[in-house]
């Protein structure tokens, strides 16, 4: 059987429902609502089971394949907020807690980029992370 195990990104047409009623008007509030429960209000997470959002994400972006990862990780992709709000939250997290580790030529995630990435399901995030970002230590 083909080693599909490593093909962790599955392309399909994802039809996202309308999230208007559930999303807040700003990235800070959306972060509190859908991310802070596990990653904590201050973003430090709970090592080793919940990753910190400080500094690590900036370093990850030195690997181009990890841009999409930030959108596709289920906690991000499945948040009941639309693509624009998701782009805002991710960029907010990067600005807030990763400004010192972001690549020098870093450009914020665009709406187009986030929409495209969100339509691919990342079925095995751990395998993807191990494969693309070998520096990562869980």
């Amino acid at each position: 059987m083909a080693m599909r195990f490593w093909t962790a990104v599955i392309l399909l047409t994802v039809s996202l429902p309308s999230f208007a009623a559930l999303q807040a008007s700003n990235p800070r509030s959306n972060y509190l609502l859908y991310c802070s429960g596990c990653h904590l209000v201050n973003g430090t997470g709970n090592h080793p089971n919940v990753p910190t959002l400080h500094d690590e994400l900036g370093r990850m972006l030195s690997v181009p394949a990890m841009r999409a990862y930030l959108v596709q990780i289920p906690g991000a992709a499945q948040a009941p907020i639309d693509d624009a709000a998701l782009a805002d939250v991710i960029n907010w997290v990067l600005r807030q807690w990763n400004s010192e580790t972001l690549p020098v030529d870093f450009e914020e995630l665009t709406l187009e980029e986030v929409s495209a990435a969100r339509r691919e399901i990342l079925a095995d995030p751990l395998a993807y992370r191990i494969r693309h970002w070998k520096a990562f230590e869980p």
Partner: protein
Amino acid sequence: MRIPVLFAVFLLSPLTLGQIAPEVLTVETLPEPGPNWFLGKTWSGGAHIFDAHSGEMMGMVSLAKNAPTLIANPDKREIYAAESYMTRETRGTRTDIVAIYDYDNLRTVAEIEVPNHIARLPVKRHLGLLNNGRHLAVLNMNPGHSVSIVDVEDRIFVDEISTPSCAVIMPVAENDFLQVCGDGTLQLIQLDLSGFQQNRERSTVFFNVIDDPVFDRVARSADGWILPTHGGMIYEVSTDDDEILIGEGWSLIAEGEESWRPGGDEFISAHQELGLLYVAMHEGSVDTHHQYGDEIWLYDLETRQRLHRHALEVPVRSLMVTQESNPKLIVSDEAGGTQVFDAVSFKHERSIETPASVHFEDF
């Protein structure tokens, strides 16, 4: 004086008690399980084995608090459970295990240590038995989801498979299982013969987790699984090698019945051979999915017609239909009692007062 009296008693004793020997305390072994035996899983008091015909308790499988569930394997005459223990019960070092109990003595014959984050909540589909009973899959939450695979034949821990945002374990084919995922899809994990992940697939999106989510409570069907949604839709799913097959959804709710919804704990069960589906229903608004049922609705899976609406005196929490040719419907109610019905006629056959079961397993 006391001593002469005692002496007299001693002299008398052999004469008065001479014909009867003192009774000797023995231990039962569990009789061979008959048809319509079942396990009543309590929240933190282990599982009681009952014979639905007599209403008698036959024995108990003593488990750790909050153990998710247990699975009986009649081929091996073993029962498997995932349990979590702390050295001082509510504090101390936490150790999680898969415990193997034998039928005869309902005692552990083996323990296999697993990563200490099993999902401790009484939910049937936190455990799944695969590969002809060789592999047991255990759901973990930490708070991300994963699945531990244990080889219960060789009695070793095999691997922990990362499955973020997917839960529920529905064994399919020989050595595979389906899960429900928060993005509205099903995930298929295929294992190799050693129990390691060999392949992973995702289905198309077929439900919306915010508007009408698929429950984490499902029923096994003849060739797959029956998935209910909060709003009363039914999806019948199965696999064909690495392809996930999802049938077109059909609704339990007819026109004029829009106030009715499924709900409770393990509120749905199917008789696989007869193709009968039992669902506990209540009248309620959105987000009443844990409300106990006031009625049990019975459907023919082939025609999708409702055959019967059975009103209950006491609301139902969980139910299970046994897989016998003369099946019983076992119901646990709000008052803590267990009711046994004939599953076809709905004739109430008996009440078992204690304990309060959270859900039932086949035995």
